[in-house]
């Protein structure tokens, strides 16, 4: 017999589960937007092709996993490859765009997207690439009594938090982080002090590529790996950066989690909630429609009160 208490309990469990799913999605968003926000904040470059790095990460992951059968080995192989890809993109295309206006940057990196989307179709074909989880990651754990939750999703949350912590440490405590922050406030001055700022940019870009690739690798078992998957993430990453404030790692983390949770919980709860409030026919249309707009409405509201985002970077 399910009493009122039982139904409530079920709803609560569902909510917790969706909340964790939201955190996990937020982690992906953070990994992608962390690199993007650094590039935007420090180099003042709009890079639409950042989503392509996520896509490439997922493709590399599926290939390496197919070859080696180990997710860990795939990860170890992917990091230098993505670093190299990032450095190459920076050297060949991005570097020529630093002095250009935003319009040029948008168009040129749009060209990069077209190129990469087609490139993966040429190399890997049009079918989605498979990547099934290894045994040790595919189980469930009981987070609460009678509430199983996939281990893998918890691992993703853990890895994401670890990366966030590492990044904070790097930005605030290391010499490279100090240079990054200095470069964001006053580029010519850092250059004048004898720092090789071009090299610094290249490294930051490579680092961003590795993070995006890591997100792609972790997402590969959860979604189908196809051409164009990066762009959906790019849109969310833009929303995250706008909300969090350009150039702010802290903002990116907070905004990623907010967006991830809002998007996931909203999508599952809102249609149900709408059915409760209004009559069913209207709700069936309005529920999913509203759920798909929720994140953007949130962005608009936050921007209305804080046009510079939640954590505006200290300098322009």
């Amino acid at each position: 017999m399910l009493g009122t208490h039982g139904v409530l309990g079920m709803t609560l469990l569902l909510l917790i589960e969706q909340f964790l799913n939201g955190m996990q999605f937020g982690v992906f968003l953070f990994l992608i937007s962390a690199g993007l926000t650094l590039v935007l904040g420090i180099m003042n470059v709009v890079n639409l092709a950042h989503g392509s790095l996520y896509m490439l990460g997922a493709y590399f992951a599926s290939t390496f996993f197919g070859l080696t059968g180990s997710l860990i080995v795939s990860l170890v192989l992917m990091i230098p490859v993505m670093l190299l890809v990032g450095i190459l993109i920076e050297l060949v295309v991005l570097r020529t765009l630093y002095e250009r206006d935003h319009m040029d940057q948008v168009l040129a990196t749009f060209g990069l997207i077209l190129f990469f989307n087609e490139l993966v179709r040429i190399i890997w074909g049009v079918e989605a690439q498979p990547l099934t989880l290894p045994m040790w990651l595919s189980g469930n754990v009981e987070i609460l009594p009678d509430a199983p939750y996939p281990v893998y999703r918890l691992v993703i949350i853990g890895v994401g938090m670890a990366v966030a912590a590492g990044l904070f440490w790097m930005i605030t405590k290391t010499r490279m982080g100090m240079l990054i922050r200095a470069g964001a406030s006053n580029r010519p001055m850092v250059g004048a002090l004898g720092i090789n700022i071009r090299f610094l940019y290249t490294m930051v870009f490579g680092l961003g590529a590795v993070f995006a690739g890591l997100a792609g690798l972790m997402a590969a078992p959860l979604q189908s790996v196809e051409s164009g998957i990066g762009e959906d993430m790019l849109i969310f990453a833009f929303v995250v950066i706008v909300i969090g404030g350009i150039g702010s790692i802290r903002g990116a983390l907070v905004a990623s989690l907010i967006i991830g949770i809002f998007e996931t919980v909203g999508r599952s709860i809102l249609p149900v909630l709408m059915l409760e409030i209004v009559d069913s026919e209207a709700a069936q249309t309005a529920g999913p429609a509203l759920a798909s707009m929720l994140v953007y409405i949130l962005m608009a509201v936050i921007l209305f009160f804080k046009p510079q985002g939640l954590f505006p970077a200290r300098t322009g």
Partner: protein
Amino acid sequence: MLSKLKLSILIGSFLILAALPMVAESEMIDEPFYIDLMARVMIFSIAAMSLDFILGYGAMISFGHALYLGLGTYAVGIMAHYELTNGWMQLLVCISGTAFIAFILGLISLRTSGIYFIMITFALAQMFYFLGISLEAFGGDDGLPIDTRSEFFSFFDLNETWNMYYLILGTLVVAALVLWKIINSRFGMVVRGSHSNDARMQAIGFPTFKYRLAAFVIAGVVCGLAGFLLGNLTEFLTPEYMHWFRSGELMIMVMVGGMGTLFGPLFGAFAYLMMEDFLANFTEYWQFYFGPILILLVLFAKQGLWGMLPGKEDISDE
């Protein structure tokens, strides 16, 4: 004023466009396909021109302009779906609808500038794209056929290819003239002034936000009209037209034609659609080639086709 060369190219192009249906359907050529192709080119010309109006003159880099193209098709499509086929009524809904949405989105996005503005216009347009996908009543992501074209006069049936074509050509000419007038008016001066130095414009007493918002709405409405025509021409409603990819394409047309030259995008739209057609005929993976071409164009041919012509475009700029 335009230079003599530019003026003659422009008038010549419009004359060619006006003569095209007769030539294409003549016995010698007999390729009615060209009428449809050029009709599409002209619709995208209108859309690209409206984008250039805010992008080139007002420095508002909207990366979601295709939204208004989609809204225009939705205005026609949804009303036709409910058998409201009166063209004037559809036009009214299309204009007021796009104006309203452009106004709201402008209020939000124009509070910001630079990179923020690009990302916000991008995200807000995608919001409507996802909304379109979730509207199952109007076909979701499959879209919906538009059964009846807009009905204006009994003697002017849009099902006739020529009528449709000349309606589009007429709209293009009128839109070009109106936008040209606006750019060279006092209003246009203020918008262009806020492009070069917004702070200074405000300091001498212009509420530039209002001017920029008005320009943003005008551009949205003109692009909505292009969507109105597109819906009628293709007889299909789909969220696809609102996708950010389309917005990117519109930006490419503006750049290829020449940013900040109102008439450049007309040729940019032509060049882009022809280039796409050519590459797609030549290879299945046309974007693989077009991507690098685009990067090279941005780096080395920024002034665009129109900009390469000799003669200064503008009346007032130095």
